[in-house]
């Protein structure tokens, strides 16, 4: 049997792995991406289901930001149509949120007194411009110090659960302020007309154009090390087992799985302890629904004050190719009642039923025009994000030349797809800096 060798093995074809693979392949490294499923992209992918282009996770794609500039930098196609102005559904009315001073606008519509709104705004402005909140206080408790109005809290809950996939009592006020500072709001996103899979597909073209390989239905079953340094991996395909030599491994399967692939005994106890204590998945409920006609005119609505639903998307308003002719696709995202309860089957059922009840209550015609396509809970091994914001682990593992990428190793201030792409870029740049001599040699150091 021939032992194959590569400079870099990427485990998993999610956007973190594909981003790193594209940069390194373009720079001359010999790259292999091993994906266990028959399709690429992981949670940034698309499935044709009942003639609708359903998502496996990613709904909107950030535009005019890090994802777009990264794609341009490596000559990858970035075909995303802008969703335009954000809209908000509050107290039965659809509001167009201005790009400038959107927060103040929303608080004004929340029904709270002028004094409460002023107090909240000045606390926000002080936190952003002068001194951020102390560590240890949740956003919920921090807001409650200023105002106890439920409408105000609902605005924050909608923002945190949509953008950061956590409830307002599950995130530190400090992290939220840093997030607002760095991302400067929640504007500028769009949809890929062929679905989110368009993004990993574009990166796959870059990888393959530059001599990289992508293997599907290829499961990495083990990572071999020597003296704490990466040496190779075993990849199982349908008919055989391949033993490959590699110098660097980038894992996009999540830090926990990465440890399993090497074997726990090769990791320091403090690393394992930090991983177990910090890594808690951020969960999200995602409903995909076929519609005979649009439920509302806009392509995206942030929802305030519903029991579970926090955001509704109708990508087919601007990308009609995602549904059968004349039909529309509705994607509803929702925050579960609590992470703890999600472990229970009955509670998951109840959460989904509550989401559907929310839709019925918000839009009386919902039942007449809708067909439920998929109701999924993204949690555990298929989460919204592998770690809650601010509780990530570092990209580098205790094994030399073994890195993690993806949403378990996000950098502060980043969330969702931009965070994942950023993690791949950072690891690729680190490899370029440390191991420039490696390019194309395929020899272990």
């Amino acid at each position, binding site marked *: 049997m021939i032992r194959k060798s590569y400079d870099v093995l990427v485990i998993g074809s999610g956007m973190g792995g594909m981003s790193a693979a594209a940069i390194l392949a373009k720079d001359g490294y010999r790259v292999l991406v091993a994906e266990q*499923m*028959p*399709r690429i992209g*992981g949670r940034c992918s698309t*499935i*044709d*289901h009942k003639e609708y282009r*359903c998502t*496996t996770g990613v709904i909107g794609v950030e535009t005019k930001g890090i994802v777009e500039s990264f794609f341009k930098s490596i000559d990858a196609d970035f075909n995303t149509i802008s969703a335009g102005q954000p809209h908000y559904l509050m107290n039965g009315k659809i509001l167009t949120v201005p790009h400038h001073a959107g927060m103040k606008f929303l608080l004004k519509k929340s029904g709270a007194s002028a004094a409460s709104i002023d107090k909240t705004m000045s606390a926000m402005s002080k936190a952003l411009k002068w001194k951020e909140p102390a560590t240890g206080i949740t956003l919920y408790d921090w807001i409650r110090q200023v105002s106890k109005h439920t409408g105000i809290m609902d605005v924050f809950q909608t923002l945190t659960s949509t953008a950061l996939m956590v409830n307002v009592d599950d995130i530190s006020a400090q992290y939220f302020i840093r997030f607002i500072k760095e991302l400067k709001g929640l504007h500028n996103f769009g949809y890929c007309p062929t679905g989110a899979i368009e993004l990993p597909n574009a990166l796959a073209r870059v990888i393959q154009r530059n001599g990289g390989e992508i293997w599907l*239905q290829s499961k990495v079953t083990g990572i071999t090390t020597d003296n704490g340094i990466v040496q190779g991996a075993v990849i199982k395909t349908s008919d055989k087992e391949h033993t490959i030599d590699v110098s660097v491994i980038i894992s996009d399967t999540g830090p926990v799985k990465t440890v399993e692939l090497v074997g726990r005994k090769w990791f320091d106890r403090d690393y394992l302890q930090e991983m177990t204590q910090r890594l808690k998945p951020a969960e999200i409920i995602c409903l995909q629904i076929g519609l005979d006609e649009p439920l509302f005119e806009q392509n995206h609505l942030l929802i305030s004050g519903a029991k579970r639903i926090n955001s509704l998307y109708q990508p087919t308003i601007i990308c009609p190719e995602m549904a059968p002719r004349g039909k529309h696709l509705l994607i509803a995202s929702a925050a579960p009642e609590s992470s703890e309860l999600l472990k229970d*089957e009955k*509670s*998951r*059922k*109840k*959460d*989904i*039923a509550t989401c559907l009840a929310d839709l019925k209550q918000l839009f009386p015609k919902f039942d007449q025009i809708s067909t439920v396509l*998929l*109701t*999924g*809970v*993204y*949690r*555990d*091994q*298929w*989460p919204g994000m592998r770690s809650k914001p601010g509780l990530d682990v570092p990209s580098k593992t205790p094994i030399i030349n073994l890195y993690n990428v993806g949403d378990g190793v996000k950098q502060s201030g980043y969330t969702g797809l931009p965070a994942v792409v950023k993690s791949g870029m950072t690891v690729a740049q680190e490899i370029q800096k440390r191991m420039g001599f490696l390019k194309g040699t395929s020899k272990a150091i």
Partner: protein
Amino acid sequence: MITIDQVLCASCAMCVTTCLEEAISCDGVTTVNTDLCTECLECLDFCPTGALTFRKPQKENHDPKKL
């Protein structure tokens, strides 16, 4: 027959989309309708958590009884 490990299953509903017979449903809990399932095993490849497995029905034990 296809069995689901409910501890491993996240109920992400990915398997639902792979089944041409519409034998799998998920409303927070994933279930397989064995009357509709043709055991094509397509769903196994798409389960991200490894919760789905195929088990051959156990044959009846015809070993002679020992005294």
